[in-house]
C-alpha cells in the first residue's frame, strides 16, 4: 500500500501545481470576446510633422444578444474605423487599447492601405514593423489609395459588409482577369530586398456609385523603388505589365480591324522571356507569348479571321510597348528583368549590373506572339 500512497501523494502535488499554473493565467491566453478583430490597417500622412494617421477597421457588430445562438451581425454598422496619429509602433497600437476595452488583434488583418502622400514620402519603417509583429502576416495584400486611406476604408463596399474584405478579395481575383496586379507584403518586401526590382502596388480611388454614394474602384498601379513611390501606371498600361510578368490568365483584348471593333477574351495565356546580353552592357529580351482566346464581340465590318488574329497580336505588342516606355521613363524595372539577368548571367551582371536603372532604356525587345482564338 505504501507504493500507492506515494503515487497518490505525487499525483496530488502535480495536480495542485497544475491548477496553480492553470488559473494563474500568466500564459497569454485571451478570451474571444476580448478581441478587437482588425480587418484592415490604413496609413495616412498626419497633419503633425513626422506622425502617421493609422486607421484600424475593426469588426464591431458582434454583440450577440443574450442567448443568441451563433452571434454575428446585429443591427447597425458591421465595422468601425478608428484613426489615431502616431508612429506605427507598439505604443501607437496601445493607444487604441486605451480607448476601447478590447485588445487589438491583428492576425486576421487582410489589407494594408497606404495613402498616396505617405507612399511618396516612404513607408520603410512601417513595413519593418509589420514584418516583425508576430500576428501580422506577410501574405496580407497592400493597396495604395489615391487620396486618403481612411476614406477608402470607410467607403461602402458593394455586396460586402466589410470594405477591407471586399478590396482584398478583389485584389486577389483581378490579376486572373487582367484588371490589375496583386501585391502582398511578401512581394513588396521581396522587391525591396532585391537590388534592382521595383514593386508595383494596385491603386484604388473613390468614385461616385449608382446611388451617389462613394464606392472604391481599382484604377492603375503605383510604382515603388525601395520603400518610396516614384510613379504610377494607368489602367491601360497595367495589362502590358501583366503580359510581361506572365500574370494574365484570361484577360480581355479590345482592338479594331478593317472597320470592325473586336473584343477577344484571352484564355490560358503563357509568357516566356529569353535574355541575350551584349558586351556593351545592353541586353536583348525576346518575349514569347502563346495564348488561346475566344472572340466575345464583333461590331461592324467583316474582318477576316487571319487579319483579326494579326490585329490581336499587334494590339498585345502595343500594350506591352506602352508599359515598357512608361517604365523606362521612370527608370523603374517593374518587370524583374534585372533579377532574371542577374540569375542567369551573373558574371555579366557583376560588370554591368551596377547602374541598372540607367541601363533600362538601352534594353531591346523582340516579340513572338501567337494568338490562337477558338471559334470565331
Amino acid at each position, binding site marked *: 500500500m505504501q507504493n500507492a500512497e506515494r503515487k497518490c501523494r505525487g499525483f496530488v502535488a502535480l495536480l495542485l501545481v497544475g491548477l496553480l499554473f492553470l488559473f494563474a493565467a500568466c500564459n497569454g491566453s485571451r478570451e474571444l470576446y476580448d478581441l478587437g478583430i482588425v480587418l484592415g490597417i490604413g496609413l495616412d500622412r498626419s497633419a503633425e510633422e513626422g506622425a502617421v494617421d493609422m486607421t484600424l477597421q475593426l469588426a464591431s457588430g458582434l454583440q450577440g444578444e443574450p442567448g443568441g445562438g451563433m452571434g454575428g451581425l446585429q443591427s447597425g454598422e458591421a465595422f468601425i474605423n478608428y484613426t489615431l496619429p502616431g508612429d506605427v509602433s507598439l505604443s501607437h497600437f496601445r493607444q487604441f487599447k486605451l480607448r476601447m476595452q478590447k485588445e487589438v488583434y491583428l492576425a486576421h488583418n487582410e489589407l494594408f492601405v497606404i495613402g498616396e502622400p505617405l507612399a511618396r514620402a516612404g513607408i520603410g519603417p512601417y513595413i519593418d514593423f509589420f514584418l516583425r509583429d508576430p500576428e501580422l502576416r*506577410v501574405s496580407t495584400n497592400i493597396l495604395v489609395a489615391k487620396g486618403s486611406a481612411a476614406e477608402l476604408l470607410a467607403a461602402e463596399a458593394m455586396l460586402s459588409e466589410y470594405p477591407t474584405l471586399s478590396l482584398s478579395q478583389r485584389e486577389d481575383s483581378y490579376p486572373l482577369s487582367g484588371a490589375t496586379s496583386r501585391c502582398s507584403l511578401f512581394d513588396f518586401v*521581396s522587391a525591396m530586398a532585391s537590388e534592382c526590382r521595383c514593386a508595383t502596388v494596385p491603386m484604388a480611388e473613390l468614385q461616385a456609385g449608382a446611388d451617389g454614394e462613394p464606392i472604391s474602384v481599382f484604377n492603375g498601379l503605383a510604382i515603388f523603388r525601395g520603400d518610396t513611390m516614384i510613379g504610377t501606371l494607368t489602367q491601360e498600361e497595367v495589362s502590358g505589365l501583366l503580359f510581361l510578368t506572365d500574370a494574365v490568365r484570361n484577360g480581355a483584348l479590345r482592338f479594331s480591324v478593317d472597320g470592325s471593333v473586336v473584343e477577344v477574351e484571352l484564355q490560358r495565356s503563357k509568357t516566356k522571356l529569353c535574355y541575350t546580353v551584349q558586351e556593351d552592357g545592353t541586353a536583348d529580351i525576346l518575349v514569347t507569348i502563346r495564348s488561346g482566346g475566344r472572340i466575345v464581340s464583333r461590331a461592324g465590318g467583316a474582318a477576316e479571321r487571319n487579319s483579326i488574329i494579326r490585329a490581336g497580336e499587334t494590339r498585345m505588342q502595343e500594350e506591352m510597348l506602352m508599359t515598357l516606355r512608361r517604365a523606362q521613363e521612370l527608370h523603374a524595372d517593374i518587370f524583374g528583368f534585372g533579377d532574371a539577368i542577374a540569375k542567369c548571367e551573373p558574371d555579366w551582371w557583376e560588370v554591368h549590373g551596377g547602374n541598372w536603372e540607367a541601363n533600362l532604356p538601352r534594353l531591346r525587345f523582340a516579340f513572338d506572339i501567337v494568338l490562337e482564338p477558338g471559334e470565331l
Partner: protein
Amino acid sequence: MRNQSFTPRQLGVALAAFIFAANRFSSYYTETLRQDAWLSVLLGLLFFAPIFLLYVALAREFPGKGLFQINEIVFGKGIGKGITVLYLFFFILINSMNQRYVADFTVNTILPEMALAPLVFSMAIVFAWVLRCGLRATMRIGWFVLLFAAGALVLSYALLAKQMQPANFMPAFRHAPVRYLQSAHTNAIISLGDMLCFLPLLRYMQPGKKVLRPVIIGILSGAALTLLCVCQNILVLGVLEPYRLYPAYDVARLIRISDAFSRMEFLFTIPALLLFTLRVLFLFFAIVEGMGQLFGIEDRRPLLLPTVGLCAALTFLVVSGSGELKAFTMGVAPFFSGFFVLLLPLLTLTVFLVRRNRVQEVIGNNAECREEVSA
C-alpha cells in the same frame, strides 16, 4: 534499466529524426550560402563521412558497449571518468542550447505572450516523464514522429507549389570557397555531429545481423529530408530567406488552402515541434546514461528529475537571447563542438590502437560484466 533496449532499425529511424530536427526550423547552418544552401547539406554529409567511420570503428571495436564504458576501458577508470565529464559537459550544453532554441521559437512565434520560465518548466516535467517511460518507448515512437513531420513537409510542398520559384536557385556557386567550407563544416559538426549522443546508448542496442545498413539509411534519409526542407525555404522565400530567423515557419505562414484556411502555420509547426522535442530527449538519455556511468548508479530513475532540472536552469543561463545563440552556432560552435565530436573520439581510438593488447586484457576480465549488463 529494464525498458531501454532497441533494435538497429529503430536506431536508424531515430538518427533520421535527429538530423531532420536540427534543420527543420532554422537554416542558419546553411544561411552563409543563401541560394546555394542546399549544397551545404550535401557537403556536410561528405565532411561528416570520416567522422562517421570513426564512430563505426569505435562501435565495432567495443560491441555492446557505450561511449562512457569505452572511455573507462581505453583510458582506465580515472582518466576515463574525466573524459566522461567532458562529454557530459558537452551534452548538457548542447541540450540546453536546443531547449533554449525550442523555447525561444515557441515564445517568438506560437505563444507570443507566454513567459519563458513556465514554458521551460512545463517542458522539463514532460521530459522527465518521457525519460521515465524509458529509451525503448522513445525509440518505438520515433518512426511515428518522423513520419508525421515528413508528411507535413511533403504536404506543405504540395500546397506551396504555386508559390515556388525555381529561379530562386540562381545564380549558383557564386560564393567564396571559404563560405562553402564554413557551411559544410558547420553542417557536419552540428546537425550531423550531434548524433555522437547515440554512442553512449549503443550498450542497449539488441545485437542484430544488419546494424550498419539501417544506420546509414537513417542518416541519408535524415539528410534527404533536410535537403527538402532547405530547398523549400529557397524556392518559396527566395531573397528573403537569409533575413528570417525561422524561415521554415515563414514558409508555413504562406500556405493558403482557400480564403478560409490561410493561417495554418500552427498546424504545420506541431509536427516540427514534436520532432525537435525528440531530439532533445535523445540528448537527455545520453546525459542520464553519462551520470549513471560517472557515479556508478545502475537505477537511474532518481537521477531524472534533478538532471532535467539542471538542464532547465542552464537553459535560462546558456544564452541571453536567440540572437546570441545564432551567432554562437554560426561562428564558434563548429570549432567548439568539433573538439568533442571529432577530436575526443579520435583520441580514444588512437589510444586504443596504441594500447590494443593492454585493453584486450581489460575486456577479457570484464567479460562477465557484459553478460550482467545485457541481462
